[in-house]
Protein backbone atom coordinates (compact mmCIF):
# COMPACT_ATOMS: atom_id res chain seq x y z
CA UNK A 1 0.00 0.00 0.00
CA UNK A 2 1.36 3.35 -1.01
CA UNK A 3 -0.38 5.08 1.84
CA UNK A 4 1.51 3.06 4.44
CA UNK A 5 4.94 3.60 2.89
CA UNK A 6 4.35 7.29 2.26
CA UNK A 7 3.25 7.62 5.88
CA UNK A 8 6.76 6.76 7.01
CA UNK A 9 7.94 10.01 5.45
CA UNK A 10 6.35 11.85 8.38
CA UNK A 11 9.59 13.09 9.91
CA UNK A 12 9.03 16.52 11.38
CA UNK A 13 12.55 17.89 11.30
CA UNK A 14 12.48 21.71 11.44
CA UNK A 15 13.82 21.97 7.89
CA UNK A 16 10.96 19.91 6.48
CA UNK A 17 8.22 21.41 8.59
CA UNK A 18 7.50 24.23 6.14
CA UNK A 19 7.21 21.73 3.33
CA UNK A 20 4.72 19.66 5.27
CA UNK A 21 2.66 22.70 6.12
CA UNK A 22 2.06 23.43 2.43
CA UNK A 23 1.59 19.70 1.86
CA UNK A 24 -1.04 19.70 4.60
CA UNK A 25 -2.76 22.73 3.11
CA UNK A 26 -2.75 21.39 -0.45
CA UNK A 27 -4.12 18.03 0.66
CA UNK A 28 -6.90 19.70 2.65
CA UNK A 29 -7.78 22.00 -0.24
CA UNK A 30 -8.01 19.07 -2.63
CA UNK A 31 -10.09 16.98 -0.24
CA UNK A 32 -12.47 19.80 0.71
CA UNK A 33 -14.95 19.79 -2.23
CA UNK A 34 -15.77 16.11 -1.72
CA UNK A 35 -15.70 16.41 2.05
CA UNK A 36 -17.96 19.49 2.05
CA UNK A 37 -20.40 17.72 -0.25
CA UNK A 38 -20.57 14.76 2.15
CA UNK A 39 -20.90 17.18 5.07
CA UNK A 40 -23.81 19.11 3.52
CA UNK A 41 -25.56 16.15 1.89
CA UNK A 42 -25.02 13.49 4.55
CA UNK A 43 -23.81 14.69 7.94
CA UNK A 44 -26.10 17.74 8.06
CA UNK A 45 -29.25 15.87 6.94
CA UNK A 46 -28.63 13.18 9.56
CA UNK A 47 -28.28 15.93 12.18
CA UNK A 48 -31.60 17.35 10.99
CA UNK A 49 -33.19 13.90 11.36
CA UNK A 50 -31.80 13.58 14.88
CA UNK A 51 -33.11 17.05 15.79
CA UNK A 52 -36.58 16.24 14.44
CA UNK A 53 -36.70 13.05 16.45
CA UNK A 54 -36.86 15.18 19.64
CA UNK A 55 -39.62 17.47 18.34
CA UNK A 56 -43.34 17.00 17.75
CA UNK A 57 -45.57 17.79 14.85
CA UNK A 58 -48.98 19.35 14.82
CA UNK A 59 -50.36 19.05 11.30
CA UNK A 60 -47.93 21.18 9.33
CA UNK A 61 -46.22 23.02 12.16
CA UNK A 62 -43.26 21.60 14.03
CA UNK A 63 -43.18 22.15 17.78
CA UNK A 64 -39.54 22.51 18.74
CA UNK A 65 -39.81 21.81 22.45
CA UNK A 66 -37.66 18.87 23.50
CA UNK A 67 -39.45 15.57 24.05
CA UNK A 68 -38.62 11.87 24.21
CA UNK A 69 -42.20 10.91 23.36
CA UNK A 70 -41.26 9.77 19.81
CA UNK A 71 -38.66 7.39 21.21
CA UNK A 72 -41.16 6.08 23.74
CA UNK A 73 -43.52 5.29 20.87
CA UNK A 74 -40.77 3.81 18.70
CA UNK A 75 -39.53 1.51 21.45
CA UNK A 76 -42.73 0.52 23.26
CA UNK A 77 -45.63 0.62 20.79
CA UNK A 78 -46.07 -3.05 19.83
CA UNK A 79 -46.21 -2.48 16.04
CA UNK A 80 -42.93 -0.53 15.91
CA UNK A 81 -41.20 -2.72 18.49
CA UNK A 82 -42.18 -5.89 16.61
CA UNK A 83 -41.16 -4.45 13.26
CA UNK A 84 -37.80 -3.39 14.64
CA UNK A 85 -37.20 -6.78 16.29
CA UNK A 86 -38.16 -8.60 13.11
CA UNK A 87 -35.93 -6.38 10.99
CA UNK A 88 -33.01 -6.99 13.35
CA UNK A 89 -33.56 -10.75 13.41
CA UNK A 90 -33.81 -10.83 9.63
CA UNK A 91 -30.73 -8.71 8.98
CA UNK A 92 -28.69 -10.80 11.44
CA UNK A 93 -29.87 -14.05 9.85
CA UNK A 94 -29.12 -12.70 6.39
CA UNK A 95 -25.64 -11.52 7.45
CA UNK A 96 -24.62 -14.83 9.06
CA UNK A 97 -26.18 -16.99 6.35
CA UNK A 98 -24.55 -14.92 3.59
CA UNK A 99 -21.13 -15.11 5.24
CA UNK A 100 -21.38 -18.88 5.86
CA UNK A 101 -22.47 -19.54 2.27
CA UNK A 102 -19.92 -17.13 0.81
CA UNK A 103 -16.85 -18.27 2.73
CA UNK A 104 -16.22 -21.50 0.78
CA UNK A 105 -16.60 -19.59 -2.49
CA UNK A 106 -14.07 -16.93 -1.46
CA UNK A 107 -11.79 -19.73 -0.20
CA UNK A 108 -12.01 -21.59 -3.48
CA UNK A 109 -11.20 -18.47 -5.54
CA UNK A 110 -8.28 -17.49 -3.31
CA UNK A 111 -6.70 -20.94 -2.87
CA UNK A 112 -7.69 -22.76 -6.07
CA UNK A 113 -8.54 -19.94 -8.49
CA UNK A 114 -5.11 -20.01 -10.09
CA UNK A 115 -4.88 -17.72 -13.09
CA UNK A 116 -8.68 -17.51 -13.40
CA UNK A 117 -8.98 -15.58 -10.11
CA UNK A 118 -9.92 -12.20 -11.57
CA UNK A 119 -12.21 -13.76 -14.17
CA UNK A 120 -14.17 -15.71 -11.51
CA UNK A 121 -14.37 -12.58 -9.34
CA UNK A 122 -15.72 -10.56 -12.26
CA UNK A 123 -18.29 -13.25 -13.09
CA UNK A 124 -19.45 -13.29 -9.49
CA UNK A 125 -19.87 -9.50 -9.36
CA UNK A 126 -22.00 -9.25 -12.53
CA UNK A 127 -25.32 -10.39 -10.97
CA UNK A 128 -24.82 -7.83 -8.19
CA UNK A 129 -24.72 -5.05 -10.76
CA UNK A 130 -28.06 -5.86 -12.33
CA UNK A 131 -31.03 -3.87 -11.12
CA UNK A 132 -31.88 -4.78 -7.53
CA UNK A 133 -35.58 -4.16 -8.17
CA UNK A 134 -35.57 -6.59 -11.09
CA UNK A 135 -33.68 -9.29 -9.18
CA UNK A 136 -36.23 -9.15 -6.38
CA UNK A 137 -39.01 -9.36 -8.95
CA UNK A 138 -37.27 -12.32 -10.52
CA UNK A 139 -37.30 -14.12 -7.16
CA UNK A 140 -41.01 -13.46 -7.04
CA UNK A 141 -41.30 -15.26 -10.38
CA UNK A 142 -39.18 -18.15 -9.08
CA UNK A 143 -40.86 -18.63 -5.71
CA UNK A 144 -44.50 -18.01 -6.70
CA UNK A 145 -47.41 -20.46 -6.71
CA UNK A 146 -47.01 -21.13 -10.43
CA UNK A 147 -43.35 -20.22 -10.21
CA UNK A 148 -40.22 -21.87 -11.50
CA UNK A 149 -39.42 -23.66 -8.25
CA UNK A 150 -42.89 -25.20 -7.94
CA UNK A 151 -42.85 -26.25 -11.60
CA UNK A 152 -39.46 -27.88 -11.13
CA UNK A 153 -40.49 -29.68 -7.95
CA UNK A 154 -43.74 -30.89 -9.56
CA UNK A 155 -41.84 -32.03 -12.64
CA UNK A 156 -39.42 -34.13 -10.62
CA UNK A 157 -42.26 -35.57 -8.55
CA UNK A 158 -40.94 -34.29 -5.22
CA UNK A 159 -44.29 -32.60 -4.47
CA UNK A 160 -47.77 -33.38 -5.78
CA UNK A 161 -49.27 -29.91 -5.81
CA UNK A 162 -47.79 -26.41 -5.93
CA UNK A 163 -46.66 -25.14 -2.55
CA UNK A 164 -47.51 -21.67 -1.26
CA UNK A 165 -44.74 -21.93 1.34
CA UNK A 166 -42.04 -20.21 -0.72
CA UNK A 167 -43.41 -16.73 -1.37
CA UNK A 168 -44.79 -13.95 0.84
CA UNK A 169 -43.04 -14.93 4.04
CA UNK A 170 -39.83 -14.42 5.98
CA UNK A 171 -38.02 -17.20 4.11
CA UNK A 172 -38.58 -15.45 0.79
CA UNK A 173 -37.04 -12.28 2.25
CA UNK A 174 -34.12 -14.31 3.60
CA UNK A 175 -33.42 -16.01 0.26
CA UNK A 176 -33.71 -12.80 -1.75
CA UNK A 177 -31.47 -10.79 0.55
CA UNK A 178 -28.89 -13.59 0.82
CA UNK A 179 -28.74 -13.54 -2.97
CA UNK A 180 -28.59 -9.75 -3.22
CA UNK A 181 -25.72 -9.34 -0.75
CA UNK A 182 -23.62 -12.38 -1.76
CA UNK A 183 -20.88 -10.37 -3.45
CA UNK A 184 -20.58 -7.93 -0.57
CA UNK A 185 -19.66 -10.89 1.64
CA UNK A 186 -17.43 -12.73 -0.85
CA UNK A 187 -15.17 -9.75 -1.64
CA UNK A 188 -14.00 -8.79 1.90
CA UNK A 189 -13.49 -12.45 2.82
CA UNK A 190 -11.56 -13.00 -0.40
CA UNK A 191 -9.32 -10.02 0.33
CA UNK A 192 -8.49 -11.31 3.81
CA UNK A 193 -7.87 -14.85 2.46
CA UNK A 194 -5.45 -13.40 -0.09
CA UNK A 195 -3.48 -11.85 2.77
CA UNK A 196 -3.04 -15.21 4.56
CA UNK A 197 0.65 -16.09 4.45
CA UNK A 198 0.73 -19.42 2.61
CA UNK A 199 3.92 -20.49 4.42
CA UNK A 200 1.96 -20.52 7.69
CA UNK A 201 -0.50 -23.00 6.19
CA UNK A 202 2.40 -25.15 4.97
CA UNK A 203 4.06 -24.94 8.38
CA UNK A 204 0.86 -26.23 10.02
CA UNK A 205 0.84 -29.17 7.58
CA UNK A 206 4.52 -29.91 8.23
CA UNK A 207 3.87 -29.87 11.97
CA UNK A 208 1.23 -32.53 11.54
CA UNK A 209 -2.09 -30.67 11.45
CA UNK A 210 -4.76 -32.30 9.31
CA UNK A 211 -6.72 -30.21 6.81
CA UNK A 212 -9.57 -29.40 9.21
CA UNK A 213 -7.38 -28.52 12.21
CA UNK A 214 -5.14 -26.52 9.89
CA UNK A 215 -8.12 -24.57 8.59
CA UNK A 216 -9.61 -23.95 12.04
CA UNK A 217 -6.32 -22.98 13.70
CA UNK A 218 -4.53 -21.06 10.95
CA UNK A 219 -6.69 -19.94 8.03
CA UNK A 220 -9.96 -19.16 9.83
CA UNK A 221 -8.47 -17.03 12.65
CA UNK A 222 -6.40 -15.07 10.14
CA UNK A 223 -9.49 -14.23 8.10
CA UNK A 224 -11.58 -12.94 11.02
CA UNK A 225 -11.13 -9.31 9.83
CA UNK A 226 -12.67 -10.23 6.47
CA UNK A 227 -15.55 -12.06 8.13
CA UNK A 228 -16.18 -9.09 10.43
CA UNK A 229 -16.17 -6.65 7.50
CA UNK A 230 -18.56 -8.90 5.54
CA UNK A 231 -20.96 -9.19 8.51
CA UNK A 232 -21.09 -5.42 9.00
CA UNK A 233 -21.38 -4.62 5.29
CA UNK A 234 -24.36 -6.99 4.97
CA UNK A 235 -26.07 -6.52 8.34
CA UNK A 236 -26.32 -2.72 8.53
CA UNK A 237 -27.82 -1.94 5.10
CA UNK A 238 -30.22 -4.91 5.08
CA UNK A 239 -31.98 -3.78 8.26
CA UNK A 240 -33.42 -0.85 6.32
CA UNK A 241 -34.33 -2.75 3.17
CA UNK A 242 -37.56 -1.57 1.61
CA UNK A 243 -37.99 -3.30 -1.74
CA UNK A 244 -37.59 -6.95 -0.77
CA UNK A 245 -40.09 -7.03 2.12
CA UNK A 246 -42.62 -5.11 0.02
CA UNK A 247 -42.33 -7.42 -3.01
CA UNK A 248 -41.80 -10.90 -1.56
CA UNK A 249 -42.32 -10.53 2.19
CA UNK A 250 -46.10 -10.63 2.41
CA UNK A 251 -47.60 -9.92 5.83
CA UNK A 252 -44.91 -11.65 7.90
CA UNK A 253 -42.01 -10.11 6.03
CA UNK A 254 -42.78 -6.41 6.62
CA UNK A 255 -39.77 -4.56 7.94
CA UNK A 256 -39.09 -1.23 9.66
CA UNK A 257 -38.40 0.66 6.42
CA UNK A 258 -42.09 0.46 5.50
CA UNK A 259 -43.05 2.07 8.80
CA UNK A 260 -40.47 4.82 8.28
CA UNK A 261 -41.78 5.46 4.79
CA UNK A 262 -45.37 5.76 6.02
CA UNK A 263 -44.38 8.39 8.61
CA UNK A 264 -42.60 10.49 6.00
CA UNK A 265 -45.21 10.14 3.28
CA UNK A 266 -48.84 9.23 4.05
CA UNK A 267 -48.71 9.42 7.86
CA UNK A 268 -46.89 12.75 7.69
CA UNK A 269 -45.46 12.48 11.19
CA UNK A 270 -41.87 13.46 10.48
CA UNK A 271 -40.66 13.47 14.10
CA UNK A 272 -41.90 9.89 14.63
CA UNK A 273 -40.34 8.81 11.32
CA UNK A 274 -37.10 10.49 12.41
CA UNK A 275 -37.16 8.74 15.78
CA UNK A 276 -37.77 5.38 14.08
CA UNK A 277 -34.80 6.04 11.76
CA UNK A 278 -32.47 7.03 14.58
CA UNK A 279 -33.56 4.09 16.74
CA UNK A 280 -32.94 1.68 13.86
CA UNK A 281 -29.47 3.12 13.23
CA UNK A 282 -28.46 2.99 16.90
CA UNK A 283 -29.85 -0.49 17.55
CA UNK A 284 -28.29 -2.01 14.42
CA UNK A 285 -24.93 -0.47 15.30
CA UNK A 286 -25.09 -1.97 18.80
CA UNK A 287 -26.15 -5.36 17.41
CA UNK A 288 -23.42 -5.32 14.76
CA UNK A 289 -20.71 -4.38 17.27
CA UNK A 290 -21.79 -7.06 19.76
CA UNK A 291 -22.00 -9.75 17.04
CA UNK A 292 -18.48 -8.85 16.00
CA UNK A 293 -17.28 -8.98 19.61
CA UNK A 294 -18.93 -12.35 20.09
CA UNK A 295 -17.34 -13.67 16.92
CA UNK A 296 -13.87 -12.50 17.95
CA UNK A 297 -14.34 -14.12 21.37
CA UNK A 298 -15.45 -17.40 19.76
CA UNK A 299 -12.51 -17.30 17.36
CA UNK A 300 -10.16 -16.84 20.29
CA UNK A 301 -11.62 -19.95 21.94
CA UNK A 302 -10.95 -22.17 18.91
CA UNK A 303 -7.22 -21.78 19.32
Amino acid at each position, binding site marked *: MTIATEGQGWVATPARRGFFRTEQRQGLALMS*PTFLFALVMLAA*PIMVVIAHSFWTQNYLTIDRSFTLENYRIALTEPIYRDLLMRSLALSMSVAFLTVILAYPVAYYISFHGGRYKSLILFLITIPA*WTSYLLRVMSWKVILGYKGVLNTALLGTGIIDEPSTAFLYNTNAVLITLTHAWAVFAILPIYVSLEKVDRTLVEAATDLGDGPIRRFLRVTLPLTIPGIVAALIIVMIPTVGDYVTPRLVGGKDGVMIASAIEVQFKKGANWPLGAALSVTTMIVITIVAISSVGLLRWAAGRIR
Partner: protein
Amino acid sequence: MTTGRRFLGVNWLAVYVALYVAFLYLPVLLLPLFSFNDSATPNFPLSGFTWKWYEGLLATPAMLDAARNSALVGVAAAITATLLGICAARAMTRYRFRGQKAMNGLIMAPLVLPEIIIAVALLLVMLRLGLELSLLTVVLGHVLICVPYSVTVLIAGFEGFDHSLEEASADLGETAMGTFRRVTLPMVTPAIVSSLLVSFTISLDEFILAFFLTGTDSTLPVYIWGQLRFAARLPGVLALGTIMLVLSFILLTIAELYRRRAARRANVDGGPLA
Protein backbone atom coordinates in the same frame (compact mmCIF):
# COMPACT_ATOMS: atom_id res chain seq x y z
CA MET B 1 -1.85 -24.30 -5.06
CA THR B 2 -2.97 -27.79 -5.86
CA THR B 3 -6.47 -28.94 -6.73
CA GLY B 4 -9.29 -28.94 -4.21
CA ARG B 5 -10.06 -31.49 -1.55
CA ARG B 6 -11.51 -34.73 -2.88
CA PHE B 7 -13.84 -37.22 -1.27
CA LEU B 8 -15.15 -40.24 -3.15
CA GLY B 9 -13.35 -38.94 -6.22
CA VAL B 10 -15.35 -35.70 -6.37
CA ASN B 11 -14.04 -32.19 -5.76
CA TRP B 12 -16.90 -31.12 -3.48
CA LEU B 13 -15.66 -27.58 -3.03
CA ALA B 14 -15.69 -27.00 -6.80
CA VAL B 15 -19.18 -28.51 -7.04
CA TYR B 16 -20.38 -26.19 -4.28
CA VAL B 17 -18.89 -23.14 -6.00
CA ALA B 18 -20.56 -24.13 -9.29
CA LEU B 19 -23.93 -24.46 -7.51
CA TYR B 20 -23.43 -21.13 -5.79
CA VAL B 21 -22.66 -19.38 -9.07
CA ALA B 22 -25.79 -21.00 -10.56
CA PHE B 23 -27.78 -19.61 -7.59
CA LEU B 24 -26.33 -16.15 -8.29
CA TYR B 25 -27.21 -16.27 -11.99
CA LEU B 26 -30.63 -17.98 -11.79
CA PRO B 27 -32.77 -14.87 -11.21
CA VAL B 28 -30.66 -12.79 -13.57
CA LEU B 29 -31.00 -15.20 -16.49
CA LEU B 30 -34.72 -15.82 -16.01
CA LEU B 31 -35.56 -12.21 -16.94
CA PRO B 32 -34.34 -12.47 -20.56
CA LEU B 33 -35.81 -15.96 -20.89
CA PHE B 34 -39.36 -14.90 -19.99
CA SER B 35 -39.10 -11.59 -21.86
CA PHE B 36 -39.05 -13.56 -25.14
CA ASN B 37 -41.83 -15.91 -24.03
CA ASP B 38 -45.16 -15.65 -25.85
CA SER B 39 -47.28 -15.77 -22.68
CA ALA B 40 -48.58 -13.10 -20.34
CA THR B 41 -47.54 -15.04 -17.22
CA PRO B 42 -43.92 -15.96 -16.55
CA ASN B 43 -43.92 -19.71 -15.96
CA PHE B 44 -42.88 -22.99 -17.56
CA PRO B 45 -43.38 -24.57 -20.01
CA LEU B 46 -42.39 -21.78 -22.41
CA SER B 47 -45.03 -21.20 -25.06
CA GLY B 48 -43.07 -19.71 -27.96
CA PHE B 49 -40.67 -17.02 -29.04
CA THR B 50 -41.81 -13.40 -29.49
CA TRP B 51 -40.50 -9.84 -29.82
CA LYS B 52 -43.90 -8.35 -29.00
CA TRP B 53 -43.06 -7.23 -25.43
CA TYR B 54 -40.10 -5.26 -26.78
CA GLU B 55 -42.25 -3.72 -29.52
CA GLY B 56 -44.81 -2.82 -26.87
CA LEU B 57 -42.16 -0.90 -24.91
CA LEU B 58 -41.43 1.40 -27.84
CA ALA B 59 -45.12 2.29 -27.94
CA THR B 60 -45.11 3.38 -24.27
CA PRO B 61 -44.39 7.12 -24.00
CA ALA B 62 -44.18 7.00 -20.18
CA MET B 63 -41.41 4.40 -20.43
CA LEU B 64 -39.49 6.44 -22.98
CA ASP B 65 -39.75 9.51 -20.74
CA ALA B 66 -38.46 7.51 -17.80
CA ALA B 67 -35.57 6.21 -19.91
CA ARG B 68 -34.66 9.75 -20.96
CA ASN B 69 -34.84 10.93 -17.31
CA SER B 70 -32.66 8.02 -16.17
CA ALA B 71 -30.06 8.80 -18.84
CA LEU B 72 -29.99 12.49 -17.83
CA VAL B 73 -29.73 11.72 -14.12
CA GLY B 74 -27.11 9.03 -14.76
CA VAL B 75 -24.86 11.28 -16.85
CA ALA B 76 -25.13 14.20 -14.42
CA ALA B 77 -24.51 11.97 -11.37
CA ALA B 78 -21.61 10.13 -13.02
CA ILE B 79 -19.79 13.32 -14.02
CA THR B 80 -20.31 15.06 -10.67
CA ALA B 81 -19.41 11.97 -8.63
CA THR B 82 -16.27 11.38 -10.69
CA LEU B 83 -15.13 15.01 -10.36
CA LEU B 84 -15.61 14.83 -6.59
CA GLY B 85 -14.00 11.38 -6.60
CA ILE B 86 -10.91 12.66 -8.41
CA CYS B 87 -10.38 15.36 -5.75
CA ALA B 88 -10.72 12.90 -2.87
CA ALA B 89 -8.72 10.08 -4.47
CA ARG B 90 -5.89 12.42 -5.39
CA ALA B 91 -5.87 13.93 -1.89
CA MET B 92 -5.87 10.43 -0.38
CA THR B 93 -3.03 9.01 -2.50
CA ARG B 94 -0.80 12.05 -2.98
CA TYR B 95 -1.05 13.96 0.30
CA ARG B 96 -0.89 13.32 4.03
CA PHE B 97 -2.80 15.67 6.29
CA ARG B 98 -4.47 15.81 9.67
CA GLY B 99 -8.08 14.62 9.67
CA GLN B 100 -7.57 12.67 6.45
CA LYS B 101 -8.94 9.42 7.86
CA ALA B 102 -12.00 11.04 9.43
CA MET B 103 -12.83 12.93 6.25
CA ASN B 104 -12.45 9.79 4.19
CA GLY B 105 -14.66 7.96 6.68
CA LEU B 106 -17.51 10.43 6.16
CA ILE B 107 -17.13 10.31 2.37
CA MET B 108 -17.29 6.50 2.39
CA ALA B 109 -20.11 6.33 4.99
CA PRO B 110 -22.98 5.92 2.46
CA LEU B 111 -21.60 2.40 1.79
CA VAL B 112 -22.55 1.22 5.29
CA LEU B 113 -25.72 3.22 5.92
CA PRO B 114 -29.16 1.79 5.20
CA GLU B 115 -30.32 3.56 2.05
CA ILE B 116 -33.71 4.32 3.54
CA ILE B 117 -31.99 6.44 6.22
CA ILE B 118 -30.08 8.45 3.59
CA ALA B 119 -33.29 8.82 1.60
CA VAL B 120 -35.45 10.12 4.46
CA ALA B 121 -32.67 12.40 5.73
CA LEU B 122 -32.33 14.04 2.31
CA LEU B 123 -36.09 14.17 1.84
CA LEU B 124 -36.55 15.86 5.22
CA VAL B 125 -33.92 18.51 4.43
CA MET B 126 -35.34 19.20 0.97
CA LEU B 127 -38.87 19.55 2.33
CA ARG B 128 -37.78 21.77 5.23
CA LEU B 129 -35.81 24.01 2.89
CA GLY B 130 -38.89 24.21 0.69
CA LEU B 131 -36.99 22.88 -2.32
CA GLU B 132 -39.08 21.47 -5.12
CA LEU B 133 -38.46 17.74 -5.56
CA SER B 134 -37.21 17.09 -9.08
CA LEU B 135 -34.65 15.15 -11.06
CA LEU B 136 -32.05 17.54 -9.64
CA THR B 137 -32.67 16.31 -6.10
CA VAL B 138 -32.36 12.74 -7.39
CA VAL B 139 -29.00 13.62 -8.97
CA LEU B 140 -27.75 15.04 -5.64
CA GLY B 141 -28.74 11.83 -3.84
CA HIS B 142 -27.14 9.65 -6.50
CA VAL B 143 -23.89 11.61 -6.39
CA LEU B 144 -23.74 10.95 -2.65
CA ILE B 145 -23.94 7.15 -3.06
CA CYS B 146 -21.76 7.04 -6.22
CA VAL B 147 -18.82 8.94 -4.70
CA PRO B 148 -17.61 6.05 -2.46
CA TYR B 149 -17.47 3.69 -5.46
CA SER B 150 -15.83 6.36 -7.59
CA VAL B 151 -13.20 7.06 -4.90
CA THR B 152 -12.48 3.32 -4.55
CA VAL B 153 -11.97 2.85 -8.28
CA LEU B 154 -9.88 6.02 -8.61
CA ILE B 155 -7.65 5.31 -5.59
CA ALA B 156 -6.83 1.93 -7.14
CA GLY B 157 -5.94 3.74 -10.37
CA PHE B 158 -3.91 6.52 -8.69
CA GLU B 159 -2.03 4.20 -6.33
CA GLY B 160 1.33 2.98 -7.49
CA PHE B 161 1.39 5.92 -9.86
CA ASP B 162 5.01 6.94 -10.28
CA HIS B 163 5.47 10.46 -8.87
CA SER B 164 8.99 10.78 -10.27
CA LEU B 165 7.35 11.31 -13.66
CA GLU B 166 5.54 14.36 -12.33
CA GLU B 167 8.73 15.60 -10.69
CA ALA B 168 10.62 15.11 -13.93
CA SER B 169 7.98 17.11 -15.75
CA ALA B 170 8.23 19.93 -13.20
CA ASP B 171 12.04 19.87 -13.36
CA LEU B 172 11.83 20.18 -17.14
CA GLY B 173 9.90 23.41 -16.70
CA GLU B 174 6.24 22.42 -16.94
CA THR B 175 3.79 24.35 -14.78
CA ALA B 176 1.69 22.44 -12.22
CA MET B 177 -1.30 22.66 -14.56
CA GLY B 178 0.74 21.53 -17.55
CA THR B 179 2.14 18.59 -15.61
CA PHE B 180 -1.35 17.57 -14.60
CA ARG B 181 -2.70 17.88 -18.14
CA ARG B 182 0.20 16.28 -19.99
CA VAL B 183 1.59 13.73 -17.53
CA THR B 184 -0.92 12.90 -14.81
CA LEU B 185 -4.14 12.95 -16.81
CA PRO B 186 -3.10 10.45 -19.54
CA MET B 187 -1.94 8.04 -16.83
CA VAL B 188 -5.19 8.17 -14.88
CA THR B 189 -7.70 8.33 -17.76
CA PRO B 190 -8.57 4.61 -17.64
CA ALA B 191 -9.47 4.89 -13.94
CA ILE B 192 -11.59 7.97 -14.65
CA VAL B 193 -13.49 6.27 -17.48
CA SER B 194 -14.03 3.27 -15.21
CA SER B 195 -15.38 5.53 -12.44
CA LEU B 196 -17.76 7.28 -14.87
CA LEU B 197 -19.19 3.97 -16.09
CA VAL B 198 -19.57 2.46 -12.62
CA SER B 199 -21.29 5.62 -11.32
CA PHE B 200 -23.63 5.73 -14.30
CA THR B 201 -24.58 2.08 -13.78
CA ILE B 202 -25.28 2.64 -10.07
CA SER B 203 -27.45 5.66 -10.82
CA LEU B 204 -29.30 3.81 -13.59
CA ASP B 205 -30.29 0.98 -11.22
CA GLU B 206 -30.85 2.95 -8.03
CA PHE B 207 -34.42 2.90 -6.74
CA ILE B 208 -34.91 4.01 -3.12
CA LEU B 209 -33.35 7.48 -3.37
CA ALA B 210 -35.05 8.14 -6.71
CA PHE B 211 -38.37 6.93 -5.24
CA PHE B 212 -38.15 9.33 -2.28
CA LEU B 213 -36.50 12.30 -3.92
CA THR B 214 -38.20 12.62 -7.28
CA GLY B 215 -41.11 14.91 -8.00
CA THR B 216 -43.43 14.19 -10.91
CA ASP B 217 -40.72 12.83 -13.24
CA SER B 218 -39.80 9.21 -12.76
CA THR B 219 -36.59 7.35 -13.52
CA LEU B 220 -36.68 3.81 -14.97
CA PRO B 221 -36.66 1.94 -11.61
CA VAL B 222 -39.42 4.23 -10.28
CA TYR B 223 -41.42 3.59 -13.47
CA ILE B 224 -40.90 -0.17 -13.08
CA TRP B 225 -42.04 -0.01 -9.43
CA GLY B 226 -45.26 1.63 -10.59
CA GLN B 227 -45.80 -1.08 -13.21
CA LEU B 228 -45.31 -3.99 -10.81
CA ARG B 229 -48.80 -3.53 -9.40
CA PHE B 230 -50.34 -4.60 -12.70
CA ALA B 231 -49.82 -8.30 -13.47
CA ALA B 232 -50.58 -7.70 -17.16
CA ARG B 233 -47.62 -5.34 -17.48
CA LEU B 234 -45.11 -7.90 -16.17
CA PRO B 235 -43.82 -9.16 -19.55
CA GLY B 236 -43.15 -5.58 -20.66
CA VAL B 237 -41.26 -4.95 -17.42
CA LEU B 238 -39.25 -8.14 -18.03
CA ALA B 239 -38.34 -6.89 -21.50
CA LEU B 240 -37.31 -3.51 -20.09
CA GLY B 241 -35.33 -5.30 -17.38
CA THR B 242 -33.52 -7.35 -20.00
CA ILE B 243 -32.50 -4.23 -21.91
CA MET B 244 -31.21 -2.64 -18.69
CA LEU B 245 -29.38 -5.86 -17.83
CA VAL B 246 -27.59 -5.99 -21.18
CA LEU B 247 -26.76 -2.29 -20.93
CA SER B 248 -25.34 -2.67 -17.39
CA PHE B 249 -23.35 -5.71 -18.48
CA ILE B 250 -21.79 -3.89 -21.45
CA LEU B 251 -20.96 -0.78 -19.39
CA LEU B 252 -19.40 -2.82 -16.60
CA THR B 253 -17.34 -4.97 -18.94
CA ILE B 254 -15.92 -1.81 -20.51
CA ALA B 255 -15.33 -0.38 -17.01
CA GLU B 256 -13.55 -3.58 -15.97
CA LEU B 257 -11.32 -3.53 -19.06
CA TYR B 258 -10.40 0.10 -18.36
CA ARG B 259 -9.79 -0.70 -14.70
CA ARG B 260 -7.37 -3.46 -15.65
CA ARG B 261 -5.62 -1.18 -18.09
CA ALA B 262 -5.28 1.38 -15.31
CA ALA B 263 -3.86 -1.27 -12.99
CA ARG B 264 -1.40 -2.43 -15.65
CA ARG B 265 -0.24 1.12 -16.33
CA ALA B 266 0.30 1.74 -12.66
CA ASN B 267 2.39 -1.42 -12.40
CA VAL B 268 4.83 -0.74 -15.22
CA ASP B 269 6.83 1.94 -13.41
CA GLY B 270 7.08 4.81 -15.82
CA GLY B 271 5.66 2.87 -18.74
CA PRO B 272 7.43 3.07 -22.09
CA LEU B 273 9.63 5.92 -20.85
CA ALA B 274 11.46 3.81 -18.28
